[in-house]
């Protein structure tokens, strides 16, 4: 029995995938014929699974992080240090993270074969190369759709960005629908106008009027956009009740000191608060690692800012019992060239780089993949973006072999050439 097709006014394939059909094909044993009532209650949501994506913007060097090559002509000046995971050494620039490696896993054989920032980022966020015919949803949108509870007042895909910017990006959700697009949290500050108006009665009257107008409009012309518009208003109302999540002043001073008072430290604290408060997917970014010039000086600066807050975040999640249900990934657009250029820089290198994982569904202290002595190529267990995406879904309890149905057309959730990386899964 085919899942019910949404009754949208326009017949765009991007809008004809309804929520029931999605739930019908996902979630392990959840059958397509399941009743509508039980479909609305996402079983994964009941498990309170979450995702934390740490995006090191610009392309962090694998040699200065997860796959050091000290002594090699390409190795650079840094040494490798032992970690809390037996047999795993990482770069000396990550001493705090080294103490958390028994909770993390390393995938050292990543070859995404894409050295362009935008295209590399697309692969990391969607698990696929860009295709002219179809946009694929970000992992954050997938989590928002399949991990979050429908009644969760917190937007499903929160993107905490350094600096300015704001709003939402419906395009991230592709055919899943604009409701599952990312919501930008600018510099970790609470969204604008989150304070409730002074007069609750007037506020209620305004919303009643808006809902009445929406219902009248939707009865005649329903579209994914108008539906998302209405949902966004309701979600904003609910989020206003959760504004305390954005108030970091309630955190113990000692803890915030451990995280650090700089932007990335604050964003890590906020990420933990949001995850603890029920956010299904939080992405935080640290910028910037695009070090064509002075790679080593800049990695000292940047990783010194990344290392302690990140390690503190892992420890904090663990202490609060959240790590086992929070899938963590530290990713970038690509790695950096093993070759050291004439300006002490490293350029873009997607042929052999590394990703760190941890938490939900991940076997702490494990590692997979190997690069050669110079770090130029993967010599064992090469994986691409599809493998990573499949691993994420598997770790969350979703079946990567399932399909979306977009306008009756089956679309594999994961690039079919990729499969879960069993070596790092628990």
């Amino acid at each position, binding site marked *: 029995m085919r899942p019910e097709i949404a009754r949208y006014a326009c017949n765009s394939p991007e809008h004809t995938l309804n929520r029931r059909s999605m739930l019908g094909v996902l979630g392990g044993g959840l059958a397509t014929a399941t009743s509508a009532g039980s479909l609305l209650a996402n079983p994964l949501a009941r498990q309170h699974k979450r995702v934390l994506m740490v995006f090191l913007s610009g392309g962090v060097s694998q040699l200065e992080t997860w796959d050091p090559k000290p*002594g090699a002509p390409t190795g650079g*000046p840094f040494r490798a240090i032992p970690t809390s995971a037996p047999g795993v050494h990482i770069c000396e620039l990550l001493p705090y993270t080294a103490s958390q490696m028994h909770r993390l896993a390393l995938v050292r054989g990543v070859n995404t074969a894409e050295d362009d920032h935008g295209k590399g980022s697309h692969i990391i966020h969607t698990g696929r190369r860009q295709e002219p015919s179809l946009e694929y949803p970000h992992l954050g949108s997938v989590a928002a759709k399949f991990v979050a509870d429908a009644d969760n007042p917190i937007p499903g895909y929160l993107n905490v960005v350094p600096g300015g910017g704001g709003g939402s990006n419906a395009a991230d959700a592709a055919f899943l629908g604009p409701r599952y697009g990312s919501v930008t949290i600018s510099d970790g500050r609470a969204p604008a106008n989150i304070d409730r108006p002074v007069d609750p009665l007037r506020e209620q009257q305004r919303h009643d009027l808006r809902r009445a107008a929406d219902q009248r409009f939707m009865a005649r012309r329903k579209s994914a956009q108008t539906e998302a518009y209405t949902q966004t208003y309701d979600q904003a109302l609910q989020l206003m009740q959760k504004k305390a999540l954005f108030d970091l002043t309630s955190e113990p001073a000692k803890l915030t000191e451990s995280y650090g008072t700089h932007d990335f430290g604050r964003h890590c604290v906020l990420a933990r608060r949001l995850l603890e408060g029920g956010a299904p997917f939080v992405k935080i970014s640290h910028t910037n690692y695009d070090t064509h010039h002075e790679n080593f000086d800049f990695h000292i600066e940047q990783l010194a800012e990344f290392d302690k807050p990140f390690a503190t975040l892992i420890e904090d999640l663990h202490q609060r019992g959240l790590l086992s249900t929070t899938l963590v990934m530290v990713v970038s657009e690509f790695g950096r060239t093993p070759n050291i250029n004439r300006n002490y820089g490293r350029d873009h290198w997607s042929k052999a780089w590394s990703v760190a994982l941890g938490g939900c569904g991940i076997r702490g202290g494990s590692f997979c993949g190997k690069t050669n002595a110079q770090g130029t190529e993967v010599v064992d267990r090469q994986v691409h973006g599809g493998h990573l995406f499949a691993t994420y879904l598997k770790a969350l309890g979703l079946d990567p072999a399932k399909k979306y149905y977009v306008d009756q057309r089956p679309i594999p959730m994961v690039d079919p050439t990729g499969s879960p990386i069993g070596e790092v899964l628990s």
Partner: protein
Amino acid sequence: MTQEKPKPKEAPKPPPPPPEPIAGYNLATLKQAAELKNGSPLLACRFSPDARWLITTAQDNTIQQWDLAPDKDGKIAGKKVDMAGHASWTRAISFSADNKWLITAGYDGLLLTWPLGVAHPEPVRQVQAHTGWIRGVDCQANQVLTGGNDGRLAIHLLPDLRPSRAWQAHDCHIYQASFSPDGKFILSADLKGRVKVWDQQSGALVREFAVAALHKYDAGFGADIGGVRAWSFSPDGSSIVCTGITNVSNAFAGVGNPLYVVANWTTGEIRAELKPKEAFQGTGWGVCWHRAGFILGAAGGNGGMLWAWRDDFKVPVKPEPAKTEPKKDARKEEKKLEPIAEFVAHKLADNVRDMCLSANGKKLAIAYQGGIARVHTLA
């Protein structure tokens, strides 16, 4: 009615006269005395006090000792000995004044002494002087001064490198550390272009000033870029010339220009900014103030360049801006400095990593990214 006489056509301007020669030195051509080839890209170079040896360091963590003694035909064969002792790169090289010890300080935080000029040098003493990189080292009598990425200055004593004292001097990475020529002060400079002058005896901070042109916080990339990459004292000891990168428009692509800033460190006054006439993209990696009255600056980035400026700075003073005129560059207007152009420029064969001058001022050595060091005869 009177008719204006037609103006005579202006004759083309004659080319500027060649620079007046500096007595005893030929800077118009670079006379190469030796080409020293190493397998790994070079990082730094220094002559021993007697100029018999050139020490270079390389990206494979090794140190090279090159014998510059000429053969019977006056040619320098440049016999090399590779030395292993650091677990990381080394850019800080110094010597004991008696020509007995080579002192190296590395990115591994280690301070090492080596016997100079022996056939197979091995480290004699080793101490963990800093946490993280050491970029600055200098030696005076039996005192070895180091400055590190931990922001600390430290003094160890020869011959056993016994710790003498150490103190937190900067809140960011120290890029240079030197004794003043008269030995009474210690100078240190950091990533942010700040120069601090310390009393050598008491360790008290005497003065602090900024070579602001050599630092920028690039908000787009969220990182500091710059720092005093090399420096050199004036022959009278009162001034210091600092180099690095300025005008940075893209930190992570290295889009900026080398600049050589002259400061009177006894007052903190910025005296002059020495800038190449032709725009060159890169970083100043070497600077040497010659006692004959000129300053040599070397840079790497898009290739390599060497420039020379006279040190009798006739600094053109920028006119006072009108009071209503908005200030575009507060730093330059405050100092009223116009950059001074060089009198000699040489395009070099490769990307410069470092430059040094022999104590007698007759030899110049440049270390290149391509793994070659070239020795030039100036006199």
